[in-house]
């Protein structure tokens, strides 16, 4: 294993050094400027990089071609100062004859901003091109870019090693006396690992640079660059013969998110580029078209009988002070601060005062004593004349004090008909928002509802709709609303709201923040369903769906893209809450996955590498047929049992425990499985191979820019021991972008091509591009190669994905939707 381990702390230090603070938004945020991409799919000129960065979280897919070289890249702006990319290239005549001469190459890039551009200084970046792969394009570089003419002209210059050097013949300054920097070495054999020893090595130091000019014609830009890349291998093995170290390009953006480019490359070939780009922060569907929520009708405010505050007067804060304090003839003023921090002025009126409220003198007292929230005037004879509220907080406190003295009738609770009517009305109100009422516990002054959200992406929106439904249907005496969202039959968090707080906050400015501050989020206790109204009446319940599917197989040298059009039928019966039978059958309609006859050269138990045989023989295929049980064992402890045909390739039994309090941003879990490999036809037959696998897992939501990590350690399907590290960035709207790698005891050469398992995953919520609410999402895992080392069992209902959005920080992230 060759790791550039020493670079990690250095990298962290640089990262911390370039982090900047996010500015608060005080106007409509301007759409960020999006620099253009190069033929490598990274931010750059044509065949070289620049020091610019894409807007935070920008995702781009680029396909470029020239001279027999097709490059397909997915790039992601991981943070505002770190850009990354995965590339799949089809390079003609890059392998020596005889035999297959086309190289199908996978590679990864990273680019780190060292200095942000300022008025005086250019932006400066450090980049690693093809640092994880066979090294065909591998190189390291430093680049600087300065924008001029109010951004219309960008000038870039850079130095590079490896692929970036050669033409000019400059010597690598790090190479002297034949040290290790003098020899770069060739491309890696199995590839897939980081050969940090190659960084900054080679005899040549390259220079590159160029210009980009935004023409006055809207959407058009011109580029010109000097590239020191000799294309030596392409020249030696193929037909591409660069005549000049210069490239020229014309680019066009017909609309947001689309880039087209045409180029003249190295004086000898024409090139084309198409890039599609999107950003989780800029949904394609900017509005959701949902109807307005049910208004909250406040319970009738009881009239104060005058014994608490006298007559209540609202005086506008900051209104004109028409009476000077010295002229008010008031001499006795006592200031008290209550437990909530409100300042109350108690005034004894002079003997000559009448019983009219001297509200103008309240403003004078406020001016005299500084920030008084309310003034209470008492007549010398002891009569409470009035209370003048000078600020909204005092008015609310007075409302709550008056409200607290009122007792609403609770006789309805002992009347079955009235209770039934309230629950039925609640069911109807929730139905309108596709929120199911799984259970309810109704008491005279509080109600607990277990809701199932089938519609809203953001759970707080469902909680808010449920709160509105409760306010509309519950008798006036019910003051406390406890709302427990149930996800996958698991009650995770309990959100407790005061009805009076809802009435005080609704429709006000900063209402979402006020609602969050007044809400209490705790771990939901394990539900005693047999004691909850309505629950068991709803079981058993069946669900089914039929959906199209598009399984895709990528990166096979014989056919880089294979896919099927299939139909998947899902069905399930939930016998009791958490106890269910589930199945899925997939039938191919048309496609090319069955044409995959790739030879399998794996030396390990073939737990995944026979995927081609599964894809070709499984038609129809039972994708899943399991009995499942999920339950909450304690307030913060969850459990799962699954048994049957667990996934396409394995059947068996699986057990899992997860400890994850809602107030905590981390959790730990453990899983153990006994499985046996299924026959290739994916019906009920089994092969001889069986294994016990299991992992201990640590989950951590860092709380920084949505990054969360997961570390799993244990035994994998091929019997190998090791660990998986996953890092992903999760967005409040449901987007997820991340990567993982797994290292086990299996040596790289035994693992085979790719050296170790790694991949990227992407989740796009349907909400992002559809003009209505949906909980559906598109998810995929992109693996450069499917090998057998470091492979985990695919289990449909692992616990952490069910609970991760329902904890305190998950709810807070989308709480702004509470009133929507």
């Amino acid at each position: 294993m060759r790791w550039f381990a020493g670079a990690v702390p250095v990298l962290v230090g640089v990262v911390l050094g370039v982090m900047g603070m996010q500015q608060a938004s005080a106007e409509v945020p301007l759409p960020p400027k999006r620099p253009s991409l190069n033929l490598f799919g990274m931010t750059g000129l044509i065949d070289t990089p620049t020091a610019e960065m894409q807007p935070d979280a920008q995702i781009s897919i680029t396909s470029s071609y020239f001279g027999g070289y097709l490059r397909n890249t997915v790039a992601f702006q991981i943070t505002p100062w770190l850009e990354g990319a995965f590339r799949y290239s089809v390079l003609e005549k890059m392998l020596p004859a005889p035999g297959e001469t086309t190289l199908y190459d996978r590679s990864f890039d990273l680019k780190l901003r060292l200095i942000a551009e300022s008025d005086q200084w250019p932006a400066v970046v450090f980049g690693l091109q093809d640092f994880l792969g066979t090294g065909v394009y591998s190189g390291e570089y430093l680049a600087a870019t300065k924008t001029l003419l109010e951004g219309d002209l960008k000038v870039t210059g850079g130095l590079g090693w490896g692929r970036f050097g050669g033409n000019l013949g400059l010597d690598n300054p790090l190479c002297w006396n034949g040290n290790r920097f003098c020899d770069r070495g060739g491309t890696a054999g199995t590839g897939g690992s980081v050969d940090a020893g190659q960084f900054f090595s080679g005899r040549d130091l390259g220079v590159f640079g160029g210009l980009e000019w935004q023409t006055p014609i809207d959407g058009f830009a011109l580029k010109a660059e000097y590239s020191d890349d000799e294309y030596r291998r392409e020249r030696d093995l193929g037909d591409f013969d660069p005549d000049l170290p210069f490239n020229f390009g014309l680019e066009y953006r017909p609309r947001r998110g689309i880039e087209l480019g045409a180029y003249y490359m190295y004086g000898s070939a024409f090139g084309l580029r198409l890039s599609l780009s999107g950003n989780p922060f800029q949904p394609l569907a900017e509005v959701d078209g949902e109807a307005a929520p049910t208004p909250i009708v406040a319970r009738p405010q009881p009239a104060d009988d005058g014994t608490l505050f006298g007559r209540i007067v609202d005086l506008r804060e900051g209104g004109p002070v028409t009476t000077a304090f010295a002229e008010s003839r008031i001499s006795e003023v006592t200031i008290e601060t209550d437990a909530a921090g409100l300042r109350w002025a108690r005034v004894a009126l002079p003997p000559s005062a009448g019983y009219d409220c001297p509200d103008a003198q309240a403003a004078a007292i406020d001016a005299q004593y500084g920030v008084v929230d309310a003034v209470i005037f008492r007549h010398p004879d002891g009569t409470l004349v009035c209370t003048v509220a000078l600020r909204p907080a005092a008015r609310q406190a007075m409302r709550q004090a008056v409200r607290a003295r009122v007792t609403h009738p609770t006789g309805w609770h002992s009347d079955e008909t009235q209770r039934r009517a309230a629950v039925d009305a609640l069911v109807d109100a929730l139905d309108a928002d596709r929120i199911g009422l799984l259970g309810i516990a109704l008491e005279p002054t509080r109600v607990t509802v277990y809701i199932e959200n089938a519609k809203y992406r953001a759970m707080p929106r469902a909680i808010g709709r449920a709160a509105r439904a409760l306010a509309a249907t519950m008798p006036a005496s019910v003051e406390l609303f406890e709302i427990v969202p149930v996800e996958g039959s698991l009650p995770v968090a309990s959100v407790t709201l005061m009805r009076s707080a809802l009435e005080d906050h609704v429709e006000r400015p900063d209402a979402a923040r006020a609602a969050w501050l007044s809400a209490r989020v705790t771990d939901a206790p394990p539900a005693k369903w047999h004691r909850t109204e309505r629950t068991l009446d709803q079981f058993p319940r069946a669900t089914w769906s039929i959906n199209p599917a598009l399984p895709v197989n990528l990166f096979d040298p014989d056919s880089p893209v294979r896919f099927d059009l299939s139909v998947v039928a899902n069905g399930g019966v939930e016998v009791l809450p958490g106890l269910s039978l589930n199945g899925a059958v997939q039938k191919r309609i048309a496609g090319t996955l069955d044409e995959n006859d790739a030879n399998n050269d794996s030396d390990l138990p073939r737990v995944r590498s026979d995927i081609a045989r599964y894809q070709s023989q499984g038609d129809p295929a039972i994708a899943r047929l399991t009995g499942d049980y999920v339950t909450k064992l304690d307030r913060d402890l969850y459990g799962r049992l699954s048994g049957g045909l667990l996934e396409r390739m394995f059947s068996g039994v699986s057990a899992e425990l997860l400890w994850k309090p809602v107030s905590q941003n981390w959790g730990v879990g453990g899983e153990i499985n006994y499985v046996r490999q299924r026959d290739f036809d994916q019906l009920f037959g089994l092969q001889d191979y069986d294994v016990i696998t299991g992992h201990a897992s640590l989950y951590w939501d860092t709380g920084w820019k949505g990054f969360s990590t997961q570390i799993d350690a244990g035994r994998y399907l091929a019997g190998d021991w090791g660990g998986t590290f996953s890092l992903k960035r999760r967005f409040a709207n449901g987007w997820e972008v991340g990567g993982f790698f797994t290292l086990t005891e299996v040596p790289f050469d035994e693992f085979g091509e790719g050296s170790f398992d790694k991949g990227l995953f992407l989740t796009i919520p349907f909400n992002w591009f559809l003009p209505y609410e949906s909980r559906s999402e598109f998810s995929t895992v992109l693996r450069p190669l499917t090998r057998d080392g470091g492979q985990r069992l695919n289990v449909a209902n692992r616990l952490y994905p069910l609970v991760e959005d329902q904890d305190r920080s998950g709810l807070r992230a989308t709480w702004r939707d509470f009133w929507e």
Partner: protein
Amino acid sequence: MRAHTVSLMAALALAACSSSGSNDFQRIGALAKAQLAPAEPQAPAPELTRAELDQIPWATIALSFGDGPRSYLVPLADNGGYLTYLDSAGHGLVMFGGAVTGTQAFGKDLEGVLRDPRDPIAHPVPLADWPGRIDRQYQFAVRDNGAYAVTLACVFDRVAAETVEIVELDFDLVRIAETCTNARRQVVNTYWVEAGTGFIWKSVQWLGPDLDQVTIEIIRPYGG
């Protein structure tokens, strides 16, 4: 080939069905159909007369955008002076006094307005006592994004005394132009105000950078 084609069509016809009713694929299909073959626009509803409006036993406002037809709304909730109006299409408007403080289901909705306590649009004040300038913060939330606010400094100009007709009734009012600005934008709201009480019978107000200005006419005032 024929059997393959039939099975393909049958499978796709069945695809995207579920026990929960319409799912995303069906809704996407419906959206596509609406785009490709939009429904014929309905004829606008006839304007109501004052006599017809007088039969509504509740406070009523009329809402319109540009030269479009009026919609009539009644307040469904009063939360500390914040009145919530809903129309039959599921659009909501929230007002405090004469000021619009929120929209619902209009698109990029106005979430709330942080008002200057001296704002005469929110609290009826005789015209003679109107301040020269107030500040107002309009709060918005874009779908899937963080919230942002637009803060404007507003000044009032008394333009002219006018007689304004609101559904067959005439009112002698004063037209006030409110010019609100910040470094990036300028918006002009217009109010027709009863001078003695400060009550706003008609207004044209800004709802946000992505919505048209709304015209609000009071048909029957809210009594509280």
